[in-house]
């Protein structure tokens, strides 16, 4: 298991390298550059800017320099947000995005899993049907439709919660974005948990445990939950990816100062370093999540520890 984990860890580095390289050359292959604006700059200023940011050199030299800086932990300056380095921009916005994403994921897990378990225990009952309806709607309705709808109901009509804004992270500004962001993964997790719990409850070892007189609560918590969570663990990486992409739109709708806007804006502005920084951040998070899931598997199923 340790060897497997280490090999996965080692494989992460070339993967990241590949992503950085692909993104770098994709950006350079695109027409336009960071200083091509609507109004053309005077040629000498344009040339100066190009030189200042090293864009006058051959692409492979820029690439080498970028990689070298990266190895020293330097993501470079932003080409569009002058006076800011990419690291500074990300450091400003990331806590907001992270807070939003982590709360949304926790909510999805903490509600989705119990919901799935209760639905399975109530198989074909009212709660089961209700959960499945919720699950299908949650999976199908995108967060960029859900959030404005929630805003209309709870903000515009009921005046309970603000529709958009931030105000230094007051909790009420986070409520609707978090709900909108967590509902799709919550729905999916509930459905996965229900399905796998039904399968596990039909297993022979559950019968053995019941024959021992293990009460229901202990039966679920001690015998059934861990195996039933294996599909949920597999879903964690796609779920995190979905929350990340969801937060791109949710942040913009709710006016949150996260880093979501940098990806699209950065690409529009040809802000090479900013987009690269964002892609590296997102990729690292996803790959890290994948590694965490590997460890989670080993915790959930001892058979995978020796493999």
């Amino acid at each position, binding site marked *: 298991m340790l060897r497997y984990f280490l090999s996965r860890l080692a494989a992460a580095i070339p993967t990241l390298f590949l992503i950085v390289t692909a993104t770098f050359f994709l950006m350079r292959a695109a027409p336009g550059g960071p200083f091509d604006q609507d109004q053309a700059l005077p040629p000498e200023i344009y040339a100066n800017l190009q030189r200042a940011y090293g864009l006058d050199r051959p692409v492979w030299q820029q690439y080498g320099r970028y990689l070298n800086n990266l190895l020293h932990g330097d993501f470079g300056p932003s080409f569009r947000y002058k006076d800011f380095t990419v690291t500074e921009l990300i450091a400003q916005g990331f806590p907001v995005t992270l807070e939003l994403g982590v709360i949304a994921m926790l909510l999805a897990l903490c509600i989705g899993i119990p919901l799935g378990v209760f639905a399975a225990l109530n198989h074909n009952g009212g709660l089961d049907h209700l959960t499945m309806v919720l699950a*299908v709607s949650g999976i199908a309705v995108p967060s960029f439709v859900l959030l404005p709808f929630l805003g209309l109901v709870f903000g515009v009509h009921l005046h309970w919660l603000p529709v958009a804004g931030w105000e230094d992270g007051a909790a009420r500004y986070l409520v609707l974005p978090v709900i909108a962001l967590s509902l799709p993964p919550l729905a999916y997790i509930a459905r996965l948990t229900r399905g796998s719990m039904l399968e596990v409850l039909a297993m022979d070892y559950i019968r053995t445990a019941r024959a021992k007189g293990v009460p229901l609560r202990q039966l679920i918590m001690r015998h059934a939950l861990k195996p039933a969570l294996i599909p949920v663990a597999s879903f964690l990486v796609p779920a995190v990816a979905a929350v990340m992409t969801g937060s791109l739109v949710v942040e913009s709708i709710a006016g949150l100062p996260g880093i979501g806007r940098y990806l699209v804006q950065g690409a529009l502005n040809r802000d090479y370093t900013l987009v690269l920084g964002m892609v590296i951040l997102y990729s690292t998070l996803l790959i890290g999540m994948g590694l965490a899931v590997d460890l989670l598997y080993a915790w959930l199923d001892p058979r995978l520890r020796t493999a």
Partner: protein
Amino acid sequence: MESYSAAWRRFRENRAAVLACLIVAAVVLLALVGPLVNPNHGDALDWQAVAVAPTRLHAHWFGTDRLGRDLFVRTLEGTQVSLLVGLIATLMSLVFGISYGAVAGFAGGRTDNVMMRIIEIVSGLPLVFFVIVVGVLFGRGPVLLFVSIGAVSWLTTARIVRGQTLSIVRQPYIEAAIAAGAPPSRIIYRHVIPNLLGPVVVYATLSIPQIMLFESFLSFLGLGIQEPNASLGTLVSQGVGDMEAASWILLVPGSLLALLLVALNIFGDGLRDALDVKEA
């Protein structure tokens, strides 16, 4: 095949799926016929009626948007676009996914290993971010949209098809046919493809709403369908900007998108249960 009549019976007994199927059919019909019967034209600007609310008496049944365009017609035309994108992109992802998966499953051995390893690596990449970046960088034509959506969604199809193909090829009668020297093309055509039909139909049905959702997401970001055309995603994105003053500009396309996606999902789930296809 008798199993299909049994599947049809199971499907008919699933009331939610039948209802969803009817809703999808109704929405598709409405999207096709609606714009024809309504006197308003989708990109005609009515400056006498800018952002008017829906009323029964009014000429604009669902109101108008900021530019005075009829929302009823625009939403239905947007639905057409969304459905079309969903269908074409699903088709593309199916064609590529099925070929890739069938080849991997049929070849087996090392070829299969390498091909599956490639899928594993690609699915570990943050593809959605790539699609966004590529979309921004290289203009936003419909071709690029199809290609990028297809690129993200073919992986699952390939995996399903490969698994199915493997299990079919391992059947004794296929092994016997191979041993007897039947050409692979004949085996694929006669045995593999017919057996793939069920899972592929189910998966395609479930893909359409996912791809429509992804398209509307890209359109919402401004990376999908461009003006004057609009998909439901574009319309929702426009509606969000005006939602406090003119909520119907958001509500009309938003509700239709939500309704359509939920119905397509329930329909796909019903089809899966009826054909008894294991979830991927």
